[in-house]
């Protein structure tokens, strides 16, 4: 992995120097704040009613009523935000012609890809870390189950990494950042809703099962509920690896196509 660090640091520098990162982080955290606040407000009023109703009191569940909705909402925001973080990775270099420069440097394609992907993942993790203070508030007010919080975050991280890998691939396809962003957003949305086909195709059948497996939502839901399932981890790992592999092939093709 020769040249990984130098590319990684350069990418990080570019990301933090550009206003995109701050705008994306601002919007993401603002929405997170709103979701968290409204979930808390709902839980608060529910708790208030539950004080008079033992049945409702038994239904009170911090994981299901606050954490799961917040995680689910954040996953939707990620859908919009991830393409913005990845859109410039390769498209920018192709447009400005620095990709050829990168080919001449003593950096392998693989290291360059890993560095670029690593950089966007790092920024994403930083943005995600901005949601942690809300969890700290929860800890101060009640005793949340940190294990389910951990699984929710793990799900978000895996989901985000999957989105970013597809975004990097989309960026490697084109010279235009906007096109890259729209491409990745469109395909992510496709992966999001493809499971709905099951309703049309009917509950049984191999095609419906395959489409349901490909859909991103179902795999994230288990994490947000507080379940660690090896099959979902494998799904995300396969998703990430596949699109990174495709990006690598695509970047290589830029060499031999000339």
């Amino acid at each position, binding site marked *: 992995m020769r040249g990984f660090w130098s590319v990684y640091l350069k990418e990080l520098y570019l990301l933090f120097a550009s206003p995109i990162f701050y705008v994306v982080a*601002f919007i993401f955290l603002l929405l997170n704040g709103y979701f968290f606040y409204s979930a808390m407000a709902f839980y608060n009023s529910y708790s208030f009613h539950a004080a008079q109703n033992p049945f409702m009191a038994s239904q009170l569940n*911090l994981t299901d009523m606050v954490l799961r909705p917040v995680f689910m909402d954040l996953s939707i925001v990620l859908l919009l935000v991830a393409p913005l973080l990845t859109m410039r990775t390769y498209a920018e270099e192709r447009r400005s012609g620095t990709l050829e420069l990168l080919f001449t440097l003593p950096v392998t394609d693989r290291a360059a890809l890993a560095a670029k992907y690593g950089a966007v993942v790092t920024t994403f993790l930083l943005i995600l870390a901005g949601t942690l203070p809300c969890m700290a508030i929860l800890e101060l007010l009640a005793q949340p189950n940190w294990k389910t919080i951990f699984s929710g975050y793990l799900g978000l991280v895996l989901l985000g990494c999957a989105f970013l890998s597809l975004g990097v691939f989309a960026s490697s396809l084109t010279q235009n950042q906007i096109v890259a962003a729209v491409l990745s957003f469109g395909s992510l949305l496709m992966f999001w809703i493809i499971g709905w086909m099951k309703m049309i195709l009917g509950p049984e059948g191999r095609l419906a099962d395959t489409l349901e497996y490909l859909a991103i939502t179902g795999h994230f839901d288990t994490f947000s509920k507080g379940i660690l399932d090896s099959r979902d981890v494998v799904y995300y790992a396969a998703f990430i690896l596949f699109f990174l*592999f495709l990006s690598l092939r695509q970047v290589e093709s830029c060499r031999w196509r000339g």
Partner: protein
Amino acid sequence: MPRIMRSRRVWTHGSNTFLSTLLFLGILVFVVLIAERHPWRVDLTEAGLYTLSEQSRKIAKAVDQPVTIKGFFQSAEPARLEVEDLLESYRLANKKIRYTFIDPDRNPEEAGRYDIRQYGTLVLEGYDRRQTIQQADEQSITNALFKLMREEQKKIYFVAGHGEHSISDFNQAGYSSVRSALERENYAVQSLSLLQQKGVPEDAAAVVIAGPEKPYFQEEVESLERYVEDGGRLLVLLDPGHAGPLVDWLRKYGIELQDDMVIDKLSRIFGGSYLMPVVTQYGLHDITQGFNVATFYSEARSVQVADPSPEGVHLVTLASTSPNAWAETDLERLRQGEASFDESEDFPGPVPLGVLVQLDPAKFPGRASSEGTSESSDETPEPSTGEGEGGAGAAEGHPAKGYLVVLGDSDFIGNTHFGLSGNGDFFLNIVNFLAEEETLITVEPRGDGGKKTGQPIVLTQDQARTILVLSLGLIPGSVILLGLGVYRVRRSHR
């Protein structure tokens, strides 16, 4: 570079890339398939919300033939997600268990095939049998699985020989629909002549007396008495006008059967006659839990309850008419078509039409009390729970509780009326309760699993404001400030 060479290069590299991508995809699919076959799952919730209890897991693991669970839910019903979580746990425990969801509104023919009347019904199919459950919780599913796997077929006997409705009769008044409905629920249905056979057979899960026209002999009643007081389960459907030793015997358990006929003004609204009382309110019991469909009875008599009830007997009124109905005692005037409510003689509504008798032989002063070996504790009978007693109790040396359900009509489940509104379901609920002996497997409801779930958070005004300021103001704001700082620094460097 000559064009040919270039295109050859592109072709070689391109096919190379294509093949390697295909190979890589193949490897991934392979890995995914292996992972799907060997799932590993940890439930991190405090209460273990997504983990089956030990009993359920054992039973799910024991399933050795394919079982399909069909859930009839509306597509957007929130309860569906919960049930899906639950069914997924069963599927994880055993691959032989599969589940699908069917929207009865989109697939009416499928719902019709399974005779679905209510959203949220689950149908389990496997072992060439079918189990239908209305309540999609772990206990019901586990019990249904257990019943599917159980080889033994429970026997329901219909007493014959006194003009009762016949289970093989396809006429309007016949009970062939009853028979096929019971057989669908995996019961074996047989008729029983108490004149030819001494006593009720040992293997009877329940005995039904379906509207006899002639009185029973004393010996027959004694057989039935022995059966019930030894923990048997009997369903008695008696039409108006029937009298004799059976009616006298039932009086012993606090059931008063008068020579009357129930007249219901309300049923006229439903399009029936005055002589077809309608029941929309049911008593509190397992049999009627969640049951909210009207049932119609053509020409019924009242089943009144003695007050106070005899010792060792607990009575639950299962079905009664609306207050608009009454039990007419002057049958002569009724025949002339001029019956009206007579306060001094007639029994005012709501008229009870169906009563459950729960008999505790240990306390009952009849025949069995002398045999009652162990003194059961002083617990009061609980009307709404039927579990944990009966067979289980008998095994520990306590005499089993006997159950007796008396309804004032037998035509309501005849071939004509079986499918009418909730009639058939009501009957099946009663038989299921009687024959099931008790809930086979009791699954402890998931508690709050300690202090962490079920904890209320009531915020003060200040706390709410702090959360608002921090989550919506401070955190996103600091990011913007940071961005501005970076922008200024970069500008000053330029």
